[in-house]
Every structure is written in C-alpha cells, then in structure tokens.
C-alpha cells in the first residue's frame, strides 16, 4: 500500500507540469493535504482523486491534449510510412521524411514562440493550427503511400541524388508551411484574426474546388465519361475561381482591416488552397493507384505541364499508375505548393492596394485570434 501511495503522489507531482503555472498551487495544496488524510486506502483514494482531476483538467486545458494528439498523429504516420523492406530506397526516403517532419513540427512552435509570441487566444488560432498540422501530416502520409511503390525497385533500385534533392525541397517547403501556420496564429502575427479566417476559409474552399472541378478535376475524371465540354467548362471554372479567390480575399481583408492585410489574406488563401489540393490529389493517387483513367490522364498531361521533369516513365505492369502519380506529385504539386502562396500573396497585395479602407480606425495590428 505504501509504495502504491508513493507512486500516486509521484504521479501527481509529475502531472503538475502540464498545468498552467498560476494553478499549480492547487496541486501542491492537494498533495500537502494528503499528509493529513489517514494512511492506507483513504490516503490512496485522496491522491487517486487528485490524479484523476489533474488529468481531466490538463486535458481540458489543452496542455496535455494537444501534445498527446500530436504524438498520436505522428506515431500513426510513422507506423504507416515506416513499413516496407529496409533495402528499398523509397522506404528509406519515407522514413527520413517522417522523422524530419516530426522534428520540424515539434520544434517549430518553440522557435516561433520566441519570435512571435505564444499561440493567439481564441478558436480560430487553435483550429488553423490543428488543421494545418493535420494537413501536413496527411500529405506526408499519402506521399509515402505513393512513393512506396513508385520509387520501389525496379523503378528506382537506389535513391538518386535528384530524388534526395526533391525530398529536401519538399521538407523545406513543409517547414515553410508549418512556420507560416504558426506565425499567422501567434499573438504577434502580422495578420489580424479576421484576415486569417478569410484567407483560410477561402483557400480551403478554392483548394477543394480546384481538386473537384479543375485544373485537377479528379472526381470528374473518375466518375466520367462526361461530355468533353463539361470537362472544359469545369477546368475553366476552376482556373477562374483559383485566380479570383486571392483577389477577393485580399479585397475583403483590406476593406475590413487595412490595405496591408490584402497580401496576408492572399498568402493564407494560397497556402491553404495549395495544401488542400496537394493533400487531396496525392491521397487520390494513393487510394486509386491502378486506375486506368488516372494513368492515362497523368500520362497525357503531367509531362506536358512539367516538361523539364520529363514524360511519365513507362513501366510495365500495374505500377504505372503509381509512377504517374509520383511524377504528378513531384513535379506538379511541389510547384503548386511553392508557387501557389507566392502568386496568391501578389494577387492579394494588389487587391489590398486597390481596395479602399472605409474606416482606418478599424485597422489594428495582428494578435489574438
């Protein structure tokens, strides 16, 4: 009994670190009081009740819940990406991906906190952070699923320097996205909360539209055959929406919070849309690896879009779909992830300059969401 009581007391002491500093006194009070409780079951029950309430409050207070959720998500991604023969170059790349991304996502909040302050208060900041991190992890997961077959022997018997350079660019881009998400949702953010909200919501909507309609149009292609004009109209509509969205978001943000917010709204729109498109499209490729429609479409289009990467490698057998998907990811989506936010930021900045802010007093510096 004594050692069980000691363990409970030690557990209570250890859990105190997950509580806010200004509240730890209550846990010290509970532990001090335990000395007054008769030894044995009563004292153990007292301490057990304290452990239970400490865990509950810590989880509700997000001090414990978010790290646990992040650890579980990273563990799930690692478990999925890790599987495969160790001698396979694609598996080696996947493992490096997962480890590096986990380190980046875990370490960046600390760095951004020093530069931009802690996370902004409010639901918007929490949702954007959680959603952004989830999207990055999903992208890493589905990319690993695609590459597991696409880069496996005999396609790539060993990782080429170009493949490693591509991975490094991918990891750097993901680190940039994570930094952007954290910076925009910190207390000293250059974007006001309403700008983050406008940009993120517009970006998610446009990313889904671009995926569903065009220029990607996966669902349309998989549910076809549709009349050719429908494909053309969908692609035109998708492109039009993609161009107009950052302008509209920048205009709306500038009208509400000042011209400088136009660029930030455009940046948020572009980043959210690019992340959404990349995750959804790569997930589709991963889930439908041997789809003939995807294979033919990728073989016919991807090479044309990215001529410097070269045409889709013809591979015998069912791997072709994966190879096409991998090329699509490596060439197309990495470009989208790189250029999407920059172009959208430019469009948003232009819209912000054009927009007339009705009330300058409503403009305020960034901060709490």
């Amino acid at each position, binding site marked *: 009994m004594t050692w069980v009581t000691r363990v409970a007391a030690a557990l209570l002491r250890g859990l105190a670190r997950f509580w806010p500093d200004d*509240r730890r006194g209550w846990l010290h009070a509970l532990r001090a009081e335990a000395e007054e409780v008769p030894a044995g079951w009563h004292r153990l029950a007292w301490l057990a009740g304290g452990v239970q309430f400490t865990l509950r409050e810590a989880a509700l207070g997000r001090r414990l819940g978010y790290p646990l959720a992040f650890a579980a998500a990273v563990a799930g991604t690692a478990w999925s990406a890790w599987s495969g023969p160790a001698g396979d170059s694609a598996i080696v790349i996947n493992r490096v991906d997962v480890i590096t991304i986990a380190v980046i996502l875990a370490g960046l909040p600390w760095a951004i906190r020093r530069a931009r302050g802690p996370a902004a208060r409010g639901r918007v900041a929490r949702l954007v952070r959680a959603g952004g991190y989830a999207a990055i992890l999903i992208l890493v997961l589905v990319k690993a699923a695609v590459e597991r077959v696409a880069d496996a022997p005999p396609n790539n018997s060993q990782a080429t320097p170009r493949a490693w350079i591509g991975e490094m660019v991918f990891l750097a881009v993901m680190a940039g996205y994570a930094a952007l998400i954290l910076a925009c949702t910190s207390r000293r953010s250059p974007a006001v909360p309403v700008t983050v909200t406008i940009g993120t919501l517009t970006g998610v909507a446009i990313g889904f539209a671009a995926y569903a309609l065009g220029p990607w149009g996966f669902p349309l292609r998989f549910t076809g055959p549709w009349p050719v004009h429908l494909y053309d109209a969908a692609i035109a509509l998708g492109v039009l929406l993609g161009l107009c969205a950052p302008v509209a978001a920048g205009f709306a943000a500038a009208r509400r919070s000042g011209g400088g917010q136009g660029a930030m709204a455009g940046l948020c729109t572009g980043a959210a849309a690019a992340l959404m498109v990349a995750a959804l499209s790569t997930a589709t490729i991963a889930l439908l690896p041997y789809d003939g429609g995807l294979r033919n479409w990728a073989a016919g289009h991807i090479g044309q879009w990215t001529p410097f990467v070269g045409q889709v490698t013809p591979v015998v057998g069912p791997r072709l779909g994966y190879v096409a998907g991998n090329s699509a990811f490596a060439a197309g989506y990495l470009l989208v992830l790189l250029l999407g936010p920059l172009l959208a930021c430019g469009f948003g900045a232009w819209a912000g300059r054009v927009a007339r802010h009705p009330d300058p007093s409503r403009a305020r510096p960034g901060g709490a969401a």
Partner: protein
Amino acid sequence: MAHRPEFSAQTLAVLAELCATPSQWRHGYGIARDTGLKSGTLYPVLIRLADRGLVEACWEDEQPTGRPRRHLYRLTPEGLATATAALAQASPARPEPASTGARGARRVASGTAP
C-alpha cells in the same frame, strides 16, 4: 423552460460548509471529510469558486513540524452573500447548511457546475 440552479449540489455542499463558520479558515481535507466529497470533486469546486472570487485561499503562515504547510479556504464577503442567497434558494430541498454533507447535498436538485 425550467430554471437551472446556479450551483451544483456539490458546490452547494461546499458553500454550506464554509458558510457555517464564515470567518474561520478551513483546510481541504476537513471540508472533504465534512461534506463527504472526494478530492477529485472538491478541488475543482474550490478552484472555480476561487476563480469567481467567492472563495479566498492562503497558505498557513508558519511551517508546522512534521507536515507540510496547508492551503486554507474561506468565503469572501461576496462569497458569503452569494452562498447565503444560493442556500436560501435551495433550502426547501436541503437541511441546515452546517450539517450538510455530500449526502445532504445530493438531496438538493442537481444543477450545473459553477
């Protein structure tokens, strides 16, 4: 729509216990023993009452021998007024505040947390 009471039965029990001797500092185990509440229930109630300014807390001034200093609690003037009103409102369903424990508190209509 039925009126929801401001305090839960457990909170009313703690308020009644503190209200019985409002000028006296009480410690956690004493309140728990007299109300019948477990530590996992009592401390959240105390924290929320303190957050609302209804309860004030302090540590014992002097270091006693053989045991750590204890955290002490009592009602603030606002807490006393609020507790008196809340207990009066709940009085048809509950006995004298001073003798009320969790068993007595359970007879109070269940309500929301503070």
